[in-house]
């Protein structure tokens, strides 16, 4: 994906025009590389046909790891390795183990999910992203269309389609 160099970039001023524009562009058979927006636009993922994120599953699995790790740790330490009567309770009495178990569940779920998010989204401090238009973090919605993937359409065709779909600008963008 990163090898492709030639793009057409459509600039949209408004999120509602963008949502309609995405559908119009896709209806014309143009494949959209990605849309860059300054804020999360609701419904954009469905309009682009993205599948729902599976990060919640990752969070659940990490959380489950935390639960079992915490319980195993406490039961092994106070129940098996060095059993001791504390406050006249059983060696392994579950209620006092619940707070630590809960905290470790939350901790691992949160950290694991965020780490997964960072990895799958390729977020890292030493990376410069490909920037199609610097205004995409300010107030413009930027639709990038890869010319190599849409080889059946000329760049003028794509620009025309973008304008018809409501884009205020349609520019060429070539990466070195």
């Amino acid at each position, binding site marked *: 994906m990163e090898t492709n160099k030639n793009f057409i970039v459509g600039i949209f001023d*408004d999120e*509602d025009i963008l949502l309609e524009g995405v559908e119009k562009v896709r209806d014309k058979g143009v494949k959209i590389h*990605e*849309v*860059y*927006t*300054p*804020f*999360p*636009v*609701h*419904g*954009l*993922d469905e309009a*682009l046909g*993205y599948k729902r*994120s599976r*990060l*919640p599953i990752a*969070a659940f699995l990490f959380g489950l790891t935390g639960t079992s790790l915490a319980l195993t*740790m406490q039961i092994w*330490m*106070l129940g098996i*390795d*060095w059993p*001791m009567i*504390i*406050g006249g*309770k059983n060696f392994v009495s579950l209620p*006092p*183990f619940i*707070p*630590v178990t*809960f*905290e*470790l569940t*939350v*901790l691992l*779920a*949160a*950290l694991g*999910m*965020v780490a997964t*998010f960072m990895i*799958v*989204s390729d*977020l*890292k*401090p*030493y*990376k*410069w*992203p*490909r*920037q199609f238009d*610097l*205004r995409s*973090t*300010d*107030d413009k919605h930027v639709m990038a269309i890869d010319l190599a993937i849409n080889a059946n359409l000329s760049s003028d065709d794509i620009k025309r389609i973008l304008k018809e779909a409501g884009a205020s600008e349609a520019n060429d963008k070539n990466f070195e």
Partner: protein
Amino acid sequence: MQVVSGVRDPLVTGGKTVHDVSHDISRHVENPPAKSWYLAMAVSLALLVFGLYCVFMVLWNGIGMWGLNKTVGWAWDITNFVWWVGIGHAGTLISAILLLFRQKWRMSINRAAEAMTIFAVICAATFPLIHMGRLWLGFYWALPLPNTFGSLWANFNSPLLWDVFAISTYFTVSLVFWYIGLIPDFAVIRDRALTQGKQLRATIYNALSFGWEGGAKTWMRYESVALILAGLSTPLVLSVHTIVSFDFATSVIPGWHTTIFPPYFVAGAIFSGFAMVLTLLLITRKVFKLEDYITIYHIELMNIIIIVTGSIVGIAYITELFISWYSGVEYEGYAFFNRVQGPYAWAYWSMMTCNVISPQLFWFKKIRTSLVATFVLSIIVNIGMWFERFVIIVTSIHRDYIPSSWTMFHPTMYDIGEYLFTFGLFFTAFFLFAKFFPVINMAEVKSIVKHNSEKVENKKVAESTHA
């Protein structure tokens, strides 16, 4: 497309555009700070330096430097700890619970409130750490390691150990939540720096933004992460002050041994936290001219939360008094009689006035929409909440079971100095945050700007046709 009720007031006034949001917030990071910032920073640093001296003396000579005695073995240290942790709770409430309830007014205040949470938890954590005396050894005691590397393990039945896990989890998760929110906003500053030709700033903020580019797929995952973090933080924040209250509630000291503590502490935490959010935001709003983002409407809503939680706290105080009589337990009854009538009655009645009576003034719309009244009351509430912890802790133990050990607690310079140290730490951190980080969540505010500006327009049109 989102539908917003026309009945509600606009959350962003002044007919701002999306570009205005980037500009109004980012310019404080880009421009050199004002003189008032240097002045405020100098005061906080002075407090920090004096506090550091006191902390050093306590670490060097031992905690005998504090005013603790044989009877009162816990006083300002734990009072300040609970007070700071409580303050932190409002940040998580705003960012997590209000997100789950889809309260959009949280959007312009969540960033600063979460920053406050993180700094408040750091301040809180200094007290138990210093109280351990030799804190470099204390780390071994608090972690699940075999005791002094022998064979005995940390005691998982102890609420103090639960506290270690609760506070460190709370700190870590809040930090991650806050940082995830900052990532897209750092990218805004990076791209503005690139446009302005500031290469160094662009490089720094690009690193801070983790190379964010804002693709639809990343945003989709981002929103899913934010929602789940909110879902995790909600029970987490409730658990933290619950566990803090267990430090007292699981003991057998009259005045501490009550089942009402967990909900009562959580309500008190949110109460004091919102007061601190108001104190900080009223200043930030004024200095940074953010009146269009943090409106009177926001302040009014926060004041309403203060009435609700303040009233819960008031009911808890009265319930405690009633139960101490109704239980028929002599010790319990005496502990409360002593609070109300004893030598610490002044502290008890300060607490009652500041926490129960003063927030009721917010029932008047004039008072809850007045900036000056809100600012003064927010400080009074925090004084009251400090007294609440002091009353619970010191009045319950200063009259021991043996009258010959009855005594009073007198703080030394080092007790006070360490409290000032945390103020220095808190405000230094907050002012640094206000200078180098965007103080309002730009990405979230941008997502509501369009509908709000339309609302402002409609309102203007409606007003002009009526007139």
